[in-house]
């Protein structure tokens, strides 16, 4: 295909040139103008047709895709370390299952629904079974790579919700709910923010309306977090919550998980530029800065308020900072990142502390960390955006309206994801039942749902 285009282009240039020379020789003005136009057209066509694969961009995106995948096992250990030992395998299993099932779904239909060229609610079926997703360029990377990269996001977003219903949701219910959630919540919201065709301006035009969400503050974090909140309400509290729930059984796992998440987040954020360029580099830097600012902020607050800084606190803070910077990373500089990180640390700290008073059991603080920090990040993007970095100015540079556009995107996501997640939970509850039996919860999901024990005792 490319060869043919090149030949046609060469031919047109030759025709154009010979027409030009020919007419010059004949000294006819009209002929010269026509010839120049012909050459100009040929050049224009060449520029349009050349969506060409750039080796540097492709190399980086290959790595970024792998980095984002690593975040899901990282998340698995982060969550796994925080639950009781009798449930650690169930959390790891649910995360790994997301990796496998969401990938299959993504290939079969998910990518099409999210990124198909049909405007509006969904992207249509044009890319089902990755039909039409081939080796050709999509931007400056192969289409298969773009789809793979996005697929990694589709894996980790449903996996985030696990934190809310950990230790009490049936494995079959988790599976059905996650599948339905990907298709009916993730894919639509993804389409509204990232997947609409460029000229769409209807009700679902969140991205085209100017909402800034570089790597998924709304699509990933707010989306999953409000679903998590719904799950916490619909499933009810764990037996014995709050006084009888043991502390995290393996904090070193949680720290390991947080480290893998931070590392992978470079792919998540900097990779969302889809190119190996200065914007990606800036995204990597601000991601790192925000995580650090948030971690230090949480540690300091805890040190002052409770007398001792904890490792659980600092890693939770760092993750909150990473969540907060996710929508902003392509638009802010390091000062903005410091502010966003610190803000995320403070807000997440407050909401996590409030959780017990509010009385619901969001086992691993998905709402408190991903929801609150995600909302803060989405709004802060509108505040701290710098035109020289990402092309849009924020409130600090005089563009007050950006904050309103951010609010709109946040509200759409909250309302849509909240309602549909609630409905899906209720539907799955009717069909298979969401919650495990009381005795199974006592014995632990590892033995009840998976017939496995994470740690042997004697041997």
């Amino acid at each position, binding site marked *: 295909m490319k060869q043919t285009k090149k030949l046609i282009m060469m031919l047109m240039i030759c025709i154009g040139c010979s027409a030009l020379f020919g007419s010059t020789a004949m000294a006819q003005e009209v002929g010269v103008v026509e010839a120049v136009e012909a050459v100009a057209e040929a050049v224009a066509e060449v520029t349009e047709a050349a969506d060409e694969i750039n080796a540097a961009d492709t190399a980086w995106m290959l790595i970024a895709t792998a980095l984002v995948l690593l975040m899901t096992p990282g998340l698995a250990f982060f969550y796994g370390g925080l639950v009781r030992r009798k449930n650690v395998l169930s959390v790891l299993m649910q995360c790994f299952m997301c990796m496998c099932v969401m990938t299959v779904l993504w290939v079969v239909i998910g990518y099409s629904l999210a990124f198909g060229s049909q405007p509006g609610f969904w992207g249509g079926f044009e890319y089902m079974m990755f039909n039409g997703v081939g080796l050709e360029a999509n931007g400056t990377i192969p289409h298969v790579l773009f789809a793979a990269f996005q697929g990694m996001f589709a894996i980790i977003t449903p996996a985030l919700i696990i934190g809310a219903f950990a230790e009490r949701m049936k494995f079959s219910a988790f599976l059905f709910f996650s599948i339905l959630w990907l298709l009916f919540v993730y894919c639509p919201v993804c389409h509204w923010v990232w997947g609409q065709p460029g000229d769409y301006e209807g009700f679902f035009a969140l991205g085209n309306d100017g909402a800034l969400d570089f790597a998924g503050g709304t699509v990933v974090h707010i989306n999953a977090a409000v679903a998590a909140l719904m799950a916490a309400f619909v499933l009810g509290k764990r037996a*014995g919550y709050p006084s009888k729930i043991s502390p995290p059984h393996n904090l070193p796992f949680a720290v390991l998980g947080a480290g893998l998440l931070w590392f992978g987040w470079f792919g998540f954020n900097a990779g969302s530029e889809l190119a190996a360029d200065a914007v990606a580099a800036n995204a990597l830097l601000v991601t790192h800065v925000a995580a650090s600012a948030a971690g230090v902020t949480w540690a300091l607050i805890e040190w002052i308020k409770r007398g001792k800084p904890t490792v659980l606190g600092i890693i939770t803070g760092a993750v909150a900072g990473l969540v907060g910077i996710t929508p902003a990373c392509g638009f802010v500089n390091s000062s903005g990142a410091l502010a966003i990180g610190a803000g995320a640390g403070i807000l997440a700290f407050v909401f996590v502390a409030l959780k017990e008073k509010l009385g619901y059991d969001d086992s691993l603080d998905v709402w408190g960390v991903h929801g609150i920090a995600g909302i803060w990040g989405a709004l802060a993007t509108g505040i701290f955006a710098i035109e020289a970095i990402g092309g849009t100015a924020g409130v600090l540079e005089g563009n007050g309206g950006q904050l309103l556009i951010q609010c709109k995107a946040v509200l759409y996501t909250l309302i849509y994801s909240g309602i549909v997640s609630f409905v899906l939970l209720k539907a799955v509850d009717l069909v298979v039942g969401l919650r495990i039996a009381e*005795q199974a919860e006592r014995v*632990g999901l590892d033995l009840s749902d998976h*017939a*496995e024990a994470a740690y042997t005792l004697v041997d």
Partner: protein
Amino acid sequence: MKYIVAIIQPDRLDEVLDALEKSEIHLVTVTQVMGRGRQKGIAEFYRGHKEVGSLLRKIKLEIAVSHDFVEKAITAITGAAKSGSIGDGKIIVLNIEDCVRIRTGERGGEAIG
């Protein structure tokens, strides 16, 4: 002075500790153990290999009590740990020669409570 050793189901621990508190028995040592009784237990699978646990996980509680608390302790533990199925566990009552509180050097009955 008596020493009570109770082997119970792991998922009953919280209830048993609560029940002991209510009976004014505060001091207890808890360990994870493996053991075998008449219970066959839950099978575990590892890549197709079925592990039929000849040893099962249990929790062991050890409590030193003065003799007038023995029946209270037994009632508390039995009431909270009983589920009716095989594998609920056993309570053993032993005699204690002596008991010493390390911090103060108290001995005997005073050291127990």
